[in-house]
Structures are given as structure tokens and as C-alpha cells.
């Protein structure tokens, strides 16, 4: 019974990872770009919600916001930050020779943004975790002895809804078809009249939205945010994405849930300290044994970075 409870907890935990993993996989799948700002955007959303509720806008422009507004504001802020990242990683970038490290320019830029955003937050608000008791609530549903926390159920539902919506959009909308064309072959997509310049920001908006939602869901779930919260989630989301297969949205869902379950089982059997080793070890093993992941195709990451 305890084991089943842990499995359930794993699925719940995994739902937060799923949202972030989908953001990762979307950028890699369409743009062939490993966006290292994603964990930071997630953190920005959580810390932003806290800061808006406690202090209001920077420079003392407003007083503290009520909770719903602070949460919404945090998501908007995250999307805006993601668009800023787009501007400086993709918009102004031009490749000259197409050699091996030139493909890494957006990745390197995103590492730069990771440092900027995370350390500005640290400078502004300190490194300590911040409580958000007002929005965290702890209604527990008892199902035959299995305990389900309401906020976790909501996160899972939201995560699955996002993914389902996203897959639908990618399949059926004009923008979605354009994005898939770029993912298939950027040059051919351009020749066929897909304006990739205008579609790239869409990816970053979606990234911002996903990270923003994941960040506030995390805050609601745990009632605590910190400038370091991105790193942990980021590592697990990346592991989930790799295990599921780079570029596959449902792969990211599957991988995120697997990581969540693996984490709970590790805690159950070996204790919390070994989680890091298990998660990254799984990732490394996946890269050694099956780099294309469970649901991915093998083409991504070949030749380009």
C-alpha cells in the first residue's frame, strides 16, 4: 500500500516535470536548440509570483498585488522574459561558416541568460527560500487509504490539459503545421513559404507560458519558492525529456512521469540523498543505450547543435 502511495506521489511529482520537459522538448524539436533558460524561467515565475504578492512591481511602482493577480502577472512576466531571450538568442544571430561550435551560439547565449536572470533574482531578493503560505492549500482526498493532495491533482490535470492542447494545436492549426515543417527541415520550410522568422517567437511564447504555469503550480503545491528551485526541476525535466526522446511531446510526458516515479521510489528505498545520482544516472544510461529515447526519432542533434 505504501508502495502504491509512493507511485501515486511519483506521478503527481512528475506532472510538474512534465510541463517543463515539454518546454525543453518543443524548443529542441523545432529549433534544435537546448534552451538553458527554461529552468530559470520556471524559477522566475515562482519568485515573481512571490515578489509581486509581497512587494509589488520593482522600483516601488505599485504596492503588493492580491494573489490571483500576482500569479497571473508572474506568468505574463515569464512570457515576456522568454521573448527577450528569443530576441537575443535567435533574432540577431547569423551563422558565417556553419562550423561545429557556431551551431552552439543560441545555447551559449541561453547559458548567459541563465546566469543573468538567476543572479539578478539572487541580488534582488536574496538566496533564501520564501514561504507562500497564503496560496498553498492542503486539501487531501482519502481514497481507500490512498492520500491524494488536491493541488497535486490540479497540477496533473493542468499539465495533461496543456500537453493535449499543444498536440492539438501542432496538428491542426496553421501555426502548428508551420512549426512542424520547420522541425522537419528548416530550409525546405522556408522555400515552401513558412516564415520561420515569425514562428520562432511563437515557440518562445509557448516556452514562457509552460514555464510560467509550471512555476506557479509548483508554488501552489509546495508553498515555497527559492532562487534555486529551477536547477532541480530543470535537471529532472531534462532527464525526462531525454528518456522520452528529444523532440517528442508525448515522450516528454512519459519521461517526466518516469522521473517522478523513479524519484519517489529512490526516496522510498534509498533515501533522498541519492535522487540526484539516480536521475542523472538514468539520463546518462539513456544516452549510452538509447540516445533517441523511448518515443523520439533519431534525427535530432545530428550535425547541428
Amino acid at each position, binding site marked *: 500500500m505504501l508502495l502504491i502511495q509512493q507511485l501515486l506521489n511519483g506521478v503527481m511529482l512528475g506532472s510538474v516535470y512534465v510541463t517543463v520537459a515539454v518546454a525543453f522538448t518543443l524548443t529542441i524539436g523545432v529549433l*534544435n536548440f*537546448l534552451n538553458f533558460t527554461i529552468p530559470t524561467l520556471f524559477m522566475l515565475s515562482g519568485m515573481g509570483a512571490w*515578489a509581486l504578492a509581497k*512587494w*509589488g512591481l*520593482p*522600483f*516601488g511602482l505599485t504596492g503588493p498585488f492580491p494573489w490571483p493577480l500576482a500569479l497571473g502577472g508572474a506568468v505574463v512576466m515569464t512570457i515576456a522574459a522568454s521573448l527577450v531571450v528569443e530576441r*537575443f538568442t535567435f533574432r*540577431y*544571430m547569423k551563422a558565417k*561558416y556553419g*562550423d*561545429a*561550435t*557556431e*551551431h*552552439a*551560439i543560441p*545555447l*551559449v*547565449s541561453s*547559458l*548567459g*541568460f*541563465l*546566469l*543573468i536572470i*538567476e*543572479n*539578478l533574482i*539572487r*541580488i*534582488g*531578493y*536574496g*538566496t533564501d527560500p520564501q514561504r507562500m503560505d497564503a496560496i498553498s492549500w492542503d486539501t487531501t482526498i482519502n481514497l481507500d487509504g490512498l492520500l491524494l493532495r488536491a493541488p497535486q491533482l490540479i497540477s496533473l490535470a493542468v499539465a495533461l490539459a496543456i500537453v493535449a492542447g499543444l498536440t492539438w494545436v501542432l496538428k491542426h492549426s496553421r501555426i502548428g503545421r508551420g512549426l512542424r515543417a520547420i522541425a522537419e527541415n528548416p530550409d525546405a520550410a522556408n522555400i515552401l513559404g513558412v516564415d520561420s522568422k515569425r514562428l520562432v517567437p511563437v515557440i518562445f511564447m509557448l516556452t514562457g507560458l509552460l514555464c510560467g504555469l509550471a512555476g506557479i503550480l509548483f508554488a501552489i503545491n509546495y508553498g515555497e519558492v527559492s532562487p534555486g528551485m529551477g*536547477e532541480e526541476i530543470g*535537471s529532472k525535466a*531534462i532527464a525526462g525529456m*531525454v528518456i522520452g526522446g*528529444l523532440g517528442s511531446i508525448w515522450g516528454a510526458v512519459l519521461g517526466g512521469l518516469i522521473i517522478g516515479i523513479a524519484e519517489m521510489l529512490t526516496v522510498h528505498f534509498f533515501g533522498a*540523498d*541519492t535522487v*540526484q*545520482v539516480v*536521475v*542523472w*544516472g538514468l*539520463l*546518462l544510461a539513456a*544516452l*549510452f543505450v538509447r*540516445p533517441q529515447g523511448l518515443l523520439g526519432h533519431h534525427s*535530432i*542533434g*545530428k*550535425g*547541428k*547543435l
Partner: protein
Amino acid sequence: MSGYWTGILTILAINVIMAYAIFLPVATGQLNLGGAGFQALGAYTAAYFSANYGLTVWLTLPLSILVGGAVGIAIALPLLRTKGVYLVLATFALAEVIGGAILNTEALGGAMGLSVPDYVDYPVPMGAAVLVTLFCFYLMATRFGLAMRAAHDDEVVTDLLGVSVRGVRVAAFAIGAALAGLAGALYAHSYSFVESQSFNATLSIYVLLYVLLGGTQTALGPLFGAVFFTLLPEVLRSILPEFKSWIVLAFGAGGNVSPPDESWRFVILGLLTVLMMIFRPEGLITRTLVDRLCSPFTPRRRVLREVAV
């Protein structure tokens, strides 16, 4: 010399060695985002053997180089089949696994860290840094170095010209890992204490970025990057407090936070990274720049615009 300056020289030496450790694979076109992991390997090898077996620093240094290099080969052989995103992820993951494994190993002190008996003063790391620098300059002047740079520019053609691209990359990656091991061992003996938290992901990112900003076309680039970013925070030390109070004011958080000085260093590095990737993605020191500085009196040909074919 005052303790302040010897401290800076020590960290400078370690940063220079780390810069070359990351530079070698990057020069072949492979991003290594796991520098901290290899440094941790070296540091803990040195710490463990000098604490438990009483080995002197002259024995632990080669041992750390060996361990770093061996793990480098073991990782590079299977992984360098994959490229790009996969390699970045794999090296990053490896560093995390090494860190986590150390944290969970009783014999290595776990979260408590290990103290290292055999202390070395700044001349040892400085000497090592000079040797490593000379070694890398030498390496880049050989046919192996030529093959490394060719593999970076165009791996398909390099292969057709008869170079074993994979062999060159595995070798460069492994030599880099060995150098990172050396940097770790010097760290352990210079600070007399190691804890796995010092070798975190931020360190890996930091080293990779200053190598890329310095420039990877010549062996001069990483040296410049490492020196610049080690000395920059020292130069900024005096003006930072004013910045700090300004930003705290801006965020309206009042006086209740104590931002660590280190954060500023990272913000500046981040800003420079983003700007450099836009304006000069090949890094500050390029081949052309070195050529021009070496022969300032020969008239320079105008750079011709390439005609699109």
C-alpha cells in the same frame, strides 16, 4: 607577497588550467559542459589518497591526471558517437552524477567534505599553469592541433582528408579531462579542503563561458578568458557595494537581503556572453587578430566579401 595576492594567483592558476581543459574539446567542436565533474574527480582523488594513504602532492597530482584522463576516455569513446545537444547533455549529466556519487560516499566524507593534509603554496599551481599553457601552445602547433581545428571547422571534409575525426576528438576530450583532474588536485592541495558542493553546475557553465568568450581559435583565447574573468571581480570589488545598494533599492526589497558578491560576477559574465554571441561569437581573441598583432607592419589585405554562389 600578501595573502590576498597569493590567493588570487592560486585561483588564477587553477582557472587557467580549467580553461585549457575545456578548450581542448571545444577546439575540436565538442562542448564539454561537465568541467566541474572532472575537476571534482581530480580533487577527490588527491584528497582521498593524501588523507588516507599519506601520498605527497607529487604523487597525487599525476594520479589525479590519470584518473581524469581515464574517465575522460571511458566517457568519450561511447559518447562521441553522438554529437551536439546529446554531448552537452551527457557531459552535464556526468558532472551531476559524479557530484551526487561523491555526496553519497562515506569514504569521501559525503556532504561534510574532506580535509587534505599536504598543503601547497601558490608557486606550485602557478608553475603547473605555466606548464599547461606551454603544453597547449605546443599541442596546437602540431599536426594533431591542426587536425583538431580542422575537425572543428568541417568534420566531413576532415574525415575525407584522412583524419580520424573521432580519434582526434576522443584524444582531445581525454587530455582535457586529465587537465581538469590536475586542476582539481591543485585545488584540493591549495585549499586543504574539498566539498562536492564547490564543483557544481555553475562552475562548469562559468568555465565553458570564459573559454568561449576568450576565443577558441587559438591557444591564446582561453588564457585571456581565464585571466580576464578571474581578475575582473577583483577590479570591480571596490565599486560593487554601490551597485548593490542601488539594485536593492530598485527592487524595493529594503535592507533585509544580503546579496553575495559572487552574483555580480555571474551577471556580468552573463551579459558579456549574450553581447559577445551577437557581435563576436568567435570570441575575443581570433586567429586573424593574432596574425595582425604578430605582424603589425605588413600591409593588411582588405577582407573580401564572399560572393554568394
